[in-house]
C-alpha cells in the first residue's frame, strides 16, 4: 500500500529522465550544432538553448565550437614588387558560422578545427603571396602615410581570404587578420647591418662636427655681445662725464666776478700740479722768492 506510489514516482521520474536524455539536447552559448538524420545534415542550430530530437540511431547531434579561433601561419618567403625578399606571418581570427556547410567538409577528420585550419593555411599562402607581390617594400615600411599602406595590405589579404572561404563554402567566417611578423632572410639582414653600421659612423661624425660648430658659434656670439655691452657703457660714461662738465660750468659764473684773480689762481694750481714729482728746477735770482739772494738782508731792508 505504501510502496506503490513511491515506486511509481521513482519510475516515472526515471522514465522522464531517460526520455529527456533520448529526445532533448542542449546547445551551449559557445557552440553551434547540426542534427543529422541517418547521417544526413537536416537542421543546423546556431542559437543556444534546449532542442528536441529523435533518438539515436535516427537522429544524431554534432556540436562544434563557434567561438573565435586563433590561427597563426608560418613565415613564408615572397618577393615584393621591387624584388625585395620578405618573410611574412599572419594571424587569423575565424569561427564556424554555418554548421550545415562546415559539417560535411570537415566531420570525417579526427579534429575538424585542425583540418579547417589546414585549409585556411593553404588559402592564406596564396592570398599572402599575391598581396606581397603587388606592393613595393615602401608600402610595408614607410615614415609617411601613418601606416595606412600597411593596413591596406592586411585588408587585401583579408578580402582575398574571405572571398576564397566563401567560394569554397566552408561554413566559416574570417573575423580579422593581421600581420604578425615581417622579416628579412638571414643574408639580407646581414647587409642591413652593414648599412646600419655605416649610417651610425656618419651620424657620429655629423654630431661631432655639429657640436663643434655650435660651440664655436656660441662663443663668438658671446664675444660680440660683450663688445656691444662695453661700447654702450663707454657711450654712457662719456655722456655722464659731459653732464658733469655741464654741471661744473654752472659754478664758473662765480669766477666772472674777478677774472684776473681766477686766472691767477688757476695758473697757480697748474704750477703746483705740474711740479709735483721728479722735477728739476732751474731758476735765477729774479724769481721770487730767490730774488732775496740778490742782495743782503740789510740791502733788502734798506729798500
Amino acid at each position, binding site marked *: 500500500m505504501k510502496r506503490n506510489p513511491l515506486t511509481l514516482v521513482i519510475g516515472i521520474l526515471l522514465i522522464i529522465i531517460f526520455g529527456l536524455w533520448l529526445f532533448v539536447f542542449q546547445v551551449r552559448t559557445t557552440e553551434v550544432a547540426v542534427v543529422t538524420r541517418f547521417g544526413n545534415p537536416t537542421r543546423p542550430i546556431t542559437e543556444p538553448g534546449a532542442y528536441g530530437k529523435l533518438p539515436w540511431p535516427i537522429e544524431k547531434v554534432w556540436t562544434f565550437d563557434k567561438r573565435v579561433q586563433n590561427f597563426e601561419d608560418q613565415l613564408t618567403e615572397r618577393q615584393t614588387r621591387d624584388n625585395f625578399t620578405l618573410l611574412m606571418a599572419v594571424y587569423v581570427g575565424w569561427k564556424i558560422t554555418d554548421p550545415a556547410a562546415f559539417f560535411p567538409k570537415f566531420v570525417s577528420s579526427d579534429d575538424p578545427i585542425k583540418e579547417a585550419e589546414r585549409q585556411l593555411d593553404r588559402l592564406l599562402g596564396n592570398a599572402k603571396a599575391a598581396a606581397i607581390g603587388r606592393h613595393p617594400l615602401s608600402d610595408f615600411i614607410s615614415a609617411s602615410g601613418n601606416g595606412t599602406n600597411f593596413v591596406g595590405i592586411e585588408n587585401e589579404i583579408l578580402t582575398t581570404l574571405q572571398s576564397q572561404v566563401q567560394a569554397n563554402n566552408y561554413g566559416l567566417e574570417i573575423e580579422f587578420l593581421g600581420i604578425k611578423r615581417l622579416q628579412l632572410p638571414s643574408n639580407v639582414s646581414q647587409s642591413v647591418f652593414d648599412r646600419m653600421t655605416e649610417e651610425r659612423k656618419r651620424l657620429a661624425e655629423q654630431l661631432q662636427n655639429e657640436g663643434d660648430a655650435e660651440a664655436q658659434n656660441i662663443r663668438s656670439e658671446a664675444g660680440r655681445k*660683450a663688445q656691444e655691452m662695453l661700447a654702450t657703457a663707454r657711450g654712457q660714461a662719456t655722456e655722464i662725464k659731459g653732464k658733469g662738465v655741464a654741471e661744473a660750468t654752472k659754478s664758473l659764473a662765480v669766477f666772472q666776478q674777478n677774472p684776473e684773480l681766477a686766472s*691767477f689762481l688757476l695758473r697757480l694750481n697748474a704750477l703746483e700740479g705740474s711740479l709735483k714729482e721728479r722735477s728739476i728746477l732751474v731758476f735765477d735770482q729774479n724769481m721770487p722768492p730767490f730774488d732775496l739772494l740778490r742782495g743782503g738782508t740789510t740791502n733788502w731792508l734798506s729798500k
Partner: protein
Amino acid sequence: MNDQPHSHDEPPELAGPPETPVDAGSQALSEALRSSFAIIRFVMIVLVVVFFASGFFTVGPAQRAIILRFGKPLHEGEKALLGPGKLHWSFPYPIDEVVKVNIAGIQTVESTTGWYAETPEQRASGIEPPAPQGTPLNPAVDGYVLTADDNIIHTRATLTYRISEPVRYVFGFVNASNAVQNAVDNAVLWAASQFKVDDVLTHDVAGFQEAVRRRAVQLIEKQDLGVTVEQCVVQSIRPRQLKDAFDQVTSAEQGRGKALIAAHSAENQITNQASADARSLIKLAEIDRDQMVKDMAAQAERFRDILPQYQRSPALFVQQQLSETLGRVLTNAQDKIFVAEGADGKPRELRLLFNREFTKRTP
C-alpha cells in the same frame, strides 16, 4: 469472570508467539524492508534537499558569474553578470550551468615577435646574450621589427589589461588572451613600420610607445575582445651585433652635449665679465663727474672766500700766494739748481745733459 477474561486474553497473547516462529523470516524481511524504505525515503529527501541546496553558490570579490540555462545565458548584457556579496541559486546541471570569470585581476601579455632569442635565465639576469658582429639573425628564432628607414631593431611591448566584458571574453573566443597578444604583436610591427630608428630608440620613445598603445587599443576594440587596456610599456634596443656602432653615436652625442655646456659656460663668463666691466666704466664716469662738480664747487667756494682778501690788496696777495706755492713746490722738487747772476751782470749759460731716464731704454 476473572479467569475468563484471563483465559480469553491469553490465547491471543499466546497466539502471537506461536505465529512468530511460523513466519519469522518474512516478518524480519518486512521489518527490514520497512526500515530500509524509511531510510530510503529519508535519503531521498536528503538527496532532494542536497540537490536543490547544491544550487546555492557565491561569487568571489574578483569574479563574476553567469548562469547558462540549457546552454543559454539567463539574461542579456550586464544583467547576466552576477556579482559578489549575495547568495545566488541556480538549478543544478544539466538545467543550469554556472560559469565564473575572474575579472579584477590585471592580465599581462607581452609581444613575442620583436625580440632576439634568449633563455629565461638570460631574461631574468638582464644581461643580453653576446652577439659579435657578423652573427646573422635567424628568422626562425630571433624576432625583430623593421623601421621606416629600413633598419632592424628589437622591441618588446608589455600590455596590461582587464576583462571588461566577461561574456564576450569567455564565450566569444577560444583563447582571448592569445588574440590580445596577436593584437600587441601587430601593433608593434605597425608602429615600427612608420618610425625611424633614432625616434624609436632615443628621440621619440614616448611617441612610439603611444603609437603601439593606440594601435593595440584600436585592434582590441575592432575585434571586440571584451578587454580594456590599462597600460602599454614598450622597450626597444639596437641589434646586439651593432652595439659598438650605436655606442659611438651615443658618445658623440654626449661629446656634443659637453662641448655645448662648455661653450655656454664660457658665454656666461664672457658676458658676465663684460657687464661687470661696463658697470665699472659707468661707475668711474659717475665718480669723475661727481669729483669734477665737487672740485669746481670747492674752487668756486674758495674763490668767493679769497676774493675780499684779494680786493683789499691784490699785489700783496699775489705775492703771498706765489711764495707759498713756490715754497711747497721747492720742498717737493727733487733737484734744485740756482743760477746766480755773473759778476758782469749778464746771465750765465748753463748746459744740461739729461740721461737719467734714457739710459734705461738704451741698453
